Every structure is written in C-alpha cells, then in structure tokens.
C-alpha cells in the first residue's frame, strides 16, 4: 500500500472518535488500517456522509494493496486472490492464500466427472481448529470442441458451487461456456497474443476476471495486461508459464519473483496482478503417476512460497493434497498471530472424577492438535496446558521450558486435585524423560502417554482406568 504511516491516514479520517468501527479513536483505527487489521469500510461515517466522499476516495487509493485483489466465483465459496503487499511474510503477512484449483476435462465420462468433482468439493483436512478445503475446479477444453466444453462446464456447475477456471485457448469455447456460467464469475483462461481480441470482447461483455498468458515472455505478458487494462479491464490474472524441469523451471521461478518484485518493491501498477501457476505441467514430463504427483507437489511447494496466487493442479491423491494444502496454510498464516494459547486447565467434553488428566504445552499447534484428537474421539478429560512459552513438547523438554517444577506449579494453580480422585497425570510420550522427576515433584502418579496424541484413543483402551 502507498500509505506509510497511520498519521497520514488519520488526517483523512473523520477524527470524531465516534467509535462505530469498534475502536475508541480514529487514530487507533488508522493504526489498524495500516496493518490491514481493519477495513476502511468499517468507518460508517466515511462511507455514508457526502462530505467525506473525497477523503474516502483518497484513503482507498492510499490503502489499495500493491497487487490487485481479484475475486473468482460468487457467494460463500468465492475465492479472493492477490491483494498482497509484501515480498516476505515476516514484513507483515501474506493475505489471500494461494487458490488451489484441481482440474477436470471435457473428455471425461459423466460418471467420472461427477465422481471427481464430488471428491474435490467434499475433500477436507482438519488443521489447527478448522477444516482446510480445496478452492475450486479448473475445467479443461481437452477435446478442442466448444460445444463439448460448454456441456462439461454446465455439468460441473450443476454439481458444485465452487469457483471455476474455464480453460481453453479457443475464444469460441470460452464464449459457449460463458453463456452458461458467466453469472458465477469464473476466471477465464486464457487470452494470448493470438486470441486476445476475441477474449477481450468476451470479458467486456460478460464482466468476468481474465487470465492473460504469455509463456516465458514477460514483455508479451505486460503488453497483454496493459492492453486489457486500457480497455477498462481491472480483474486480470497473469500467467507467465510454468516449466516443470531444468532451465525452464529455473527461469519460471525468476519470472515469478521478478513480476512480484516489480509490483511490490517498484510499484509497477501495470503488471501488479495476481500470478497463475500450473504445477500440473509435471504430468507432461513424468509418465509414472506417483513421480508426476510428487513433482507436481514440488512445483506447488516452490510457487506457494514464491508468489503464485492461484494454481491449477491435477493429482487429487491424498498424499499430494495434504502437503499442498498444509503448506499453503503454513505460509499464509499471519506471523503476527500469537504462537501460544492461554495456559491453564481445560475441561474437554464432560469430565468426571474418574476422567484422565492429560498434560500438554501452550504451543498453539500442539494444543489444537491434542484438543481435537481428544474431542473428536469423545474422550471426556481434563487437559492441563503448561506455559512453555509457546514451545512444543519435544523442544520444551530439551530447552527447559517444560520441567517437573513447571508442571507442579500448574497443577497446584489448576485446582484439578479437587476435581478428580485418582491423582494420576498423563504426560506426553515426548516428555517421558521428565516423568520420574515429575512424580517426585508433584506426588502424583505419572503415566506416560503416546508420543502422538492421535494415539490417545488406543492408549486409553489399554491403560485407562489405571490398574
């Protein structure tokens, strides 16, 4: 964003400290605006009162992210991409996670198509308190037949509300598909140096976001983007090409980095658009399914980190999806988010005086994993969360943040002694090393649980209640 200090923003705000935004002062609101913790539109007076109109426009300009934000799809599944402001996540955070779109093609049988779309839209993986899901479907015009493509797009749109990318280099095919799903705001793929005029006509008519594509030709890519922009198109996505191996891959990385650096470090507005990456080009190189899916995941890894805002992928095997989506979640986690949860005693389910007392750390990832493993398996219990300064079990044992003394202190403060009658603690398996000391320090019986909380159900069966 252009704004450099909260003061600069404050000057343009109403300065009435009305509190409608939820902040006590306009200055506090300004500080949050600059770190993108609040949206300008949360200042109601600014939006509604005519006298602020001009200031609102100025603020909007000052706060606009360096990379344009583009929305694909409509409704609850709409996927925002781009909108980034920094080159390295620690400088602020990355904002809109890389859109993961998985392909279907118009030569699939109806049954295969339905099954695949269903798998894409129902797939989920629990992670730190929520379910990660896939973002959308990319429909490929593999047949080269516009009618067949449109028919496939129609079927997909009847099965799912997920956002779509319509993939064809044939403007006629794109047009036939748009006649059916334009109101769902699909992303068009792609305008090229050969078909751009007709695609531009379509974009003007149907008002959908569009990818401009110029494989390994940044001058050509910019030329397309500038042409579309001057024609009044704002929702542009850039495809610099994804070459899967060798020098081609090295150059592809260079292209992504140079484009994003031009947008963010140099403020070059005319190419400051989201970037599209196609890891599925791995399938053009590898014949073996596992090799191809692995290499596709390698490409997804590189370009999740280096600036792809949307990706088109092929493998929907769990061993590809789980690491891909987890990495996106990791890279797009706000680094300003606290690492630790509040320590103390938690009651999970409806514990009784016979229920076990588990010990864990206050590292957020550890805590949420343990908590979900216990609750998902309906185990009524107490969870004693030790203040390990946000460090995980293994490291905290090695680093002295999880000690017998700390457990003793937490145990006494928790008052759990009055809630259970067994005086037994279950330590994480990775803290086995301190079990003896803990027994001595606390006077409680100490049992060593599994090294992974996913095995607590098994462990319970064999070890609880204690004999």
């Amino acid at each position, binding site marked *: 964003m252009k704004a450099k200090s909260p003061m600069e923003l404050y000057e343009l705000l109403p300065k009435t400290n009305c509190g409608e935004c939820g902040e006590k002062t306009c200055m506090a609101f300004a500080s949050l605006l600059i770190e993108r913790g609040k949206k300008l539109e949360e200042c109601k007076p600014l939006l509604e009162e005519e006298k602020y109109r001009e200031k609102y426009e100025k603020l909007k300009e000052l706060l606009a992210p360096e990379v344009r934000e583009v929305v694909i799809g409509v409704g609850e599944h709409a996927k925002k991409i781009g909108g980034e402001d920094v080159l390295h996540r620690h400088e602020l955070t990355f904002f809109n996670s890389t859109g993961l779109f998985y392909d279907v093609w118009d030569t699939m049988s109806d049954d295969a198509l339905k099954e695949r779309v269903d798998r894409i839209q129902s797939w989920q993986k629990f992670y730190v308190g929520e379910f990660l899901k896939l973002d959308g479907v990319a429909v490929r015009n593999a047949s080269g037949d516009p009618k067949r493509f449109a028919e496939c797009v129609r079927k997909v749109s009847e099965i799912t509300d997920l956002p779509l990318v319509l993939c064809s280099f044939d403007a006629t095919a794109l047009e036939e598909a748009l006649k059916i799903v334009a109101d769902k705001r699909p992303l068009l793929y792609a305008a090229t140096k050969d078909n751009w005029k007709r695609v531009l006509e379509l974009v003007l008519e149907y008002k959908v976001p569009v990818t401009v594509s110029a494989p390994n030709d940044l001058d050509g890519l910019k030329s397309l983007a500038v*042409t579309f922009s001057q024609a009044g198109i704002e929702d542009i996505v850039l495809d610099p090409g994804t070459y899967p191996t060798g020098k081609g891959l090295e150059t592809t990385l260079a292209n992504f980095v140079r484009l994003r650096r031009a947008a963010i470090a140099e403020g070059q507005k005319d190419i400051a658009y989201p970037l599209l990456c196609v890891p599925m080009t791995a399938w053009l190189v590898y014949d073996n399914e596992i090799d191809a899916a692995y290499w596709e995941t390698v490409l997804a890894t590189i370009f999740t980190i280096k600036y792809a805002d949307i990706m088109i992928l092929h493998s929907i095997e769990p061993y590809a999806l789980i690491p891909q989506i987890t990495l996106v979640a990791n890279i797009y986690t706000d680094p300003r988010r606290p690492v630790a949860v509040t320590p103390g005693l938690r009651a999970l389910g409806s514990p009784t005086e016979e229920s076990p007392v588990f010990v864990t750390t206050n590292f957020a990832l550890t805590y949420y994993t343990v908590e979900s493993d216990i609750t998902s398996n309906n185990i009524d219990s107490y969870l004693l969360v030790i203040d390990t300064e946000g460090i995980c079990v293994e490291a905290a044992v090695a680093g002295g943040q999880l000690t017998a003394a700390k457990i003793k202190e937490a145990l006494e403060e928790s008052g759990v002694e009055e809630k259970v009658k067994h005086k037994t603690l279950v330590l994480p398996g990775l803290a086995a090393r301190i079990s003896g000391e803990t027994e001595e320090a606390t006077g409680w019986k100490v049992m060593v649980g599994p090294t992974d909380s996913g095995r607590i159900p098994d462990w319970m069966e064999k070890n609880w209640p204690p004999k």
Partner: protein
Amino acid sequence: MARKFTLEDIGKLLEKYGVLELEDVKIEGDIELEVEGGVGVSSELLATLQAALQSSQMISQFAVQAAHGLFGILAIAKLAGYPVESVLQSLGVPAAPAAAPAEMAPPAPVAPAIPEELVAAKFEVGKQEWVGQIEEVIIGATAADGGTRENVVKIGGDKTLPFYGFEYQNPNPPRIAIDCFDMPIPLAKAVREHYADVMEDPGEWAKKNVKKFGADMVTIHLISTDPLIKDTPPKEAAKVVEEVLQAVKVPIIIGGSGNPDKDPAVLEAAAEVAEGERCLLASANLNMDYERIAKAAIDHGHVVLSWTQLDINDQKTLNRHLFKLGVKREDLVMDPTTAALGYGLDYAFTNIERMKIAALKGDEELAFPISCGVTNAWGAREAWMKESPIKEDSDWGPREYRGPIYEIVTGLTLALAGGNLFMMMHPGAAAVVKEVTQTLGGFKEVEKEIEFENWLTWTEK
C-alpha cells in the same frame, strides 16, 4: 451496455488532464450522454470523444492550444499518458494530426473499445543489491589438509536469496547429508525398509547412504549415549565414529544424543578420534556447556554447529559466545531448528528467511551457512500414521507415499528460505530435494523440452 456520462464527469476529466478552465463555454443544465458498446480503452476518454463528435460546437470552443476539436482533446489525453494512437486506429483515424480533423471523425455508432494491435510494452525490474555475503564453510579435509576424505563439501557463500540466479549466482548448491545411527532405532515403515539390512552396523549404514543413495555427507548420530537409552560411554561411541570414517570417504557430521549433560563428553571423545577430518560437530547450544564443544572443535580441527530454537537473538548470542571462545568465522554453521510441515514449519521458514535476509543486509553475526534437520518432518503424524485420528477428515490414503513427500516439502521449503545443508532420512526424499535444489540453483542443465500450452489438452494415458 450504456453508461451515463454527466457534465460533472467531463469537468473531472478535464481537471485530470490539466485543463483548468474552458473559455467561452456556456453550458446550461446537465448534459447526459449515452455511450453504447464496450466501454474500454479508458472509458472516460472514449466517452469524451463521443461527446466531442456529437457536440462539435462545444469542442470548437475548448481553449486548447495543440489543435482543434478532437485532436485537441487527444493531445491532452496523450500528455496524460493515454494510448492515443491505438484509439485513433480503432476509430479509423490516422495518428498524425491532419487538417480539419473534426470532419474526419467517423459518424456514430462509436467504434468498439478494442484496439487493432496490442500495446507494445517492455518489462523491466531492478536487481536487489545486498551488502553482505554468507561465509563459505568447508566440511571435510583431504590428505592435503591433514585429513583422509576423498573430497570436501563447501556450503554457503551466498550472495543473494536462494535460487535468485537471475541476479547473482550463489557459488554452492545446497548439500544433502543422510542420517545413520549407532544403534537400531524405531523408524517409520517407509524409511525402515531402506535401512533394515544395515541398522546393526553403522559403517555399513553410512556406506549405503553414500554408495546407494548418493549422500554428499553422512551424519552419525550417537544416540545410544543418552543415559536414558543405553548410556554408551563416550570412548565407546567414538569408536563408531572411527568406523564410519573408515567406511566412507565423504565428509561426516557427528551428532550426540541431544542430552545436554552428556553431549559435551561424547563430542569431545568423537572430536579427538576424528582429529583433522574437519567434521561438523552437532551441536553446541545455549542449554549446555557449549564451551567444551567449541574447545573440542578448535583443538581437533572441526566445524561447530551452532543450534538454537527458533530465535534469532539466541542465535546471535550463541554465535557471539562461540567466537569469543576462539571459533573462527569459517568454522561455524548454524542450525536455527527445523519444524515439520504442519507443525511449525511456518516459524522455521520465516526464522531462516529473516536470518538470511539480515545477513545479506550486512548483519555479520548471522552470515553463516544454515543446516536444517529435515528428518524432523517424520514427526508429523501425516508422515507415518496409518489413518487420520480425526473422524471428519477425508481419507488420508496410503501412508507410504505421504511420508517421503512430507520430508520433501519440509526440506524444499527451508531451501527456499535459505538453508544450505539438509540432514535427511528417506533416500527418495533426499534424491528429490537434491534434484530440485540443483535445478533451481542452476547446477543442472538436463531438461525434457515441453510445450507449456499442452497441459490444457493433456489426457492421462
């Protein structure tokens, strides 16, 4: 599609183009113009053109100097940076101003917003300049330098961010060390099958890592020395180090058990028997008597691994302490801690990336090669667990394919953050990380040519 264009809009437009005042123009009431067709090529400009065409008496009165009417407006537009030529082309008007321009303009309806030609453009972006450079550290010593290794391994020397060869070529590719242990240890099934035949014999294990799996180096973890495991005495553990040095000719890394009380004695004994081999001693950290590790390295000619837990300031502190004790800058590698994909990889990634950037910006306390314990990826349950413990999860599929890819993604992510040395476990994962980092680093020419566009019509065989 129609768009209304009001007098106020015209006013704004003129203001934008720097026209402060219209002389001799009287406009009474609000004028509304309908613009038909695609609103594009700067919709404002087009609409203004249309206004000009439809209202020539107004245009002729514009106080513009460049020319009359239409071309006057265009001249202003051009000054403001609009692609006037392409607009003119689309209107069928030659670009050079001709006489009596107003009469040359085509009649309504207005031309479409789509130009005849793509706007020519050149993409350029500056290079990022850095003032710092990462130290180059040599691990291993050949006969010429008092050791017995057949080759040495150089890491670091980075001049720019990893794989930014379009700016500067970093001199050394990331290197891979494969782990072996001084006793059989429980391993995930996907890993175990590769080592089951050598687990009882660290020498054979090390040999397999190099000969069969192409490791650049071998790490021998003296894990049995842990008092809670076998409490193997340091002298005995040192024999295993000798065995490994005999078995392989590549440089080696010597790891303790991670027990802060025992490790100093273990690493001292190991350093002594490996005198002159320039091994990497893993590791010194703030929770132990790191002075003994530093001294062992100095006395016997080794490199120190300076290990901290995801904390830049701790890393600087420990490095500073080690230098004060006499460790030389070219004898230090950092391990800022590796967390697995999904289990803190974001912290590890950002921690390493920040260190690398700080070093390139000139922070000399952080300008050292970075080692990553990628084997930690196997701690992620997704890497080894048979199925998800969370009932609502979609099926996790066969675990034998999940584990190696967790190790690959963890390693590659940290390579992109700035890691220089990767301690790994699964041979397939090590091979993939090596392949991709060598490719990205510009150390690999081989390539299967593809037509990028073919992905769109590709179908499974």
